[in-house]
Each structure stands twice: as structure tokens, then as C-alpha cells.
């Protein structure tokens, strides 16, 4: 059998079976402060996608640690700082936000994450919008 044939077959099988969709995704956050004249739109990277979970048939038979469910969350992140335009001198015009470097299907860390099912949409501008230039 030709090595090209074998490699291409393996590539197709591997790619088809193990493609995980929890991955860094483009996202726009909107930042505005009451004292500042403008709303800043920042293009950043978040974690989004599908993770495998199951519901146990015997929840009362197992320890809570065995009933683990994984969700798409940050694996590695870095913080960037942006400048909100149109702020008066007495206001701190900087805003720091996390940027996803890599993602994973894992636990939601309550030390720094608000773990919810769905959040009411508050990511929008009420003031004139300016795009963040990094």
C-alpha cells in the first residue's frame, strides 16, 4: 500500500474523531465608564465550544467528585490593558481584560469565574462607540 494513501487515511480518521470544538474564538467586548465620553469596543479572544458531559443514572450512589461535568473555559490567559477615550483627568481611564491563549474542557473555577447558565445581556454600548486600536 502506498505510504501517501495510508497517511491520508490516518489523517482523515484522526481529524474526524478527535476534533474538539472548545477553542479560542473572536469576541467583542464593550467598555464604558460613567465619567467617560465614549464606549470602547475591544476585539479579543474568548473560549467557546462544545464539551462532553453525562448525567449519572445513580446520583445518590456516587460522591460529588465523581459527578464531574466539564465546561469550556480558559486554560491559559494573559491580561491586556486598554485606554478608554474621552475620560476626565481625575478618572482612571485604563481597563484590563483577560485574553484567551488556549482553552480546555474543565471545571469552572469559582475563585475568578462567575459560573452561570445564562447571563442577561449587558455587553453593549450606550455612548458613542470607538474601536480599540492595539
Amino acid at each position: 500500500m502506498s505510504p501517501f494513501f495510508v497517511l491520508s487515511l490516518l489523517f482523515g480518521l484522526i481529524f474526524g474523531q478527535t476534533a474538539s470544538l472548545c477553542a479560542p474564538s473572536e469576541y467583542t467586548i464593550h467598555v464604558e465608564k460613567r465619567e467617560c465620553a465614549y464606549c470602547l469596543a475591544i476585539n479579543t479572544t474568548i473560549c467557546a465550544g462544545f464539551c462532553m458531559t453525562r448525567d449519572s443514572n445513580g446520583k445518590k450512589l456516587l460522591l460529588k467528585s465523581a459527578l464531574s461535568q466539564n465546561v469550556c473555559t480558559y486554560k491559559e490567559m494573559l491580561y491586556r490593558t486598554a485606554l478608554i477615550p474621552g475620560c476626565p483627568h481625575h478618572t482612571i481611564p485604563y481597563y484590563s481584560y483577560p485574553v484567551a491563549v488556549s482553552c480546555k474542557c474543565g471545571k469552572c473555577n469559582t475563585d475568578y469565574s462567575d459560573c452561570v447558565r445564562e447571563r442577561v445581556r449587558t455587553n453593549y454600548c450606550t455612548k458613542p462607540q470607538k474601536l480599540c486600536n492595539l
Partner: protein
Amino acid sequence: MDFKKRQIMDCYGKYAAVTLTILSVFLHLLHTFPDGEFLMQGCPECKLGENRFFSKPGAPIYQCTGCCFSRAYPTPMRSKKTMLVPKNITSEATCCVAKAFTKITLKDNVKIENHTDCHCSTCYYHKS
């Protein structure tokens, strides 16, 4: 000359075989998900599957297993202001859970659930 022509034909033939193989594998994978589930390729949808540990011949027990959507993003400023303990990241998640089930009693009075319908809904065991 004939030998060179044969070499060129062999080369083209190999490339054609590789291209056809890759195409047929992808087409097979596409047809495996008939309801437009291409987005969930490699991550099966949340649905009933037999739990072989509890199942007995003639008495299958079903369990909800599969993939659901979740995401983590920077907490919007407006939401942060309303938090008792402000958190930098918001995680919105759904998990594959039973939408409906029946209660079954096994030997030794052990009670379990036999799932009859599944959906992506609230996660209860995802926090650390």
C-alpha cells in the same frame, strides 16, 4: 521517453488517489451527521445511550451523554458592578442532562434513574 511518461503518470496517479481518499473520508463523515450537525463533528450530540453497567438482557438502562455548548468571556463592566464579589470572567455553560426519566429499583433496594429524554440544560457539578 516511455519510461518518463510512465513516471509522470504514476506521480499523477498517486496524487489523484490521495485526493480521492481524503474526499471520500470527509464525505463519509458528513453523511454520518444527517441533520446538519457538521458543527458537532467529533463531539456527539446530547442523547440517550445504553448504560452497560446497569443494563440487563431485556431490561436496558439509558443514560444521557453528549456534548453541549459553553463559553467563558470577560465579565461585562455593568454586570461586575452588581456582583457582591466581582469576578473577572463569566462562564456560561450547559450540560447534557435528563429531561425525563423513570425510577427503577434494582436488587438490594438500590434506586436508579432510567433516562427517557435528554437536553442541554443547567450544570450542577461543574464548579471547582
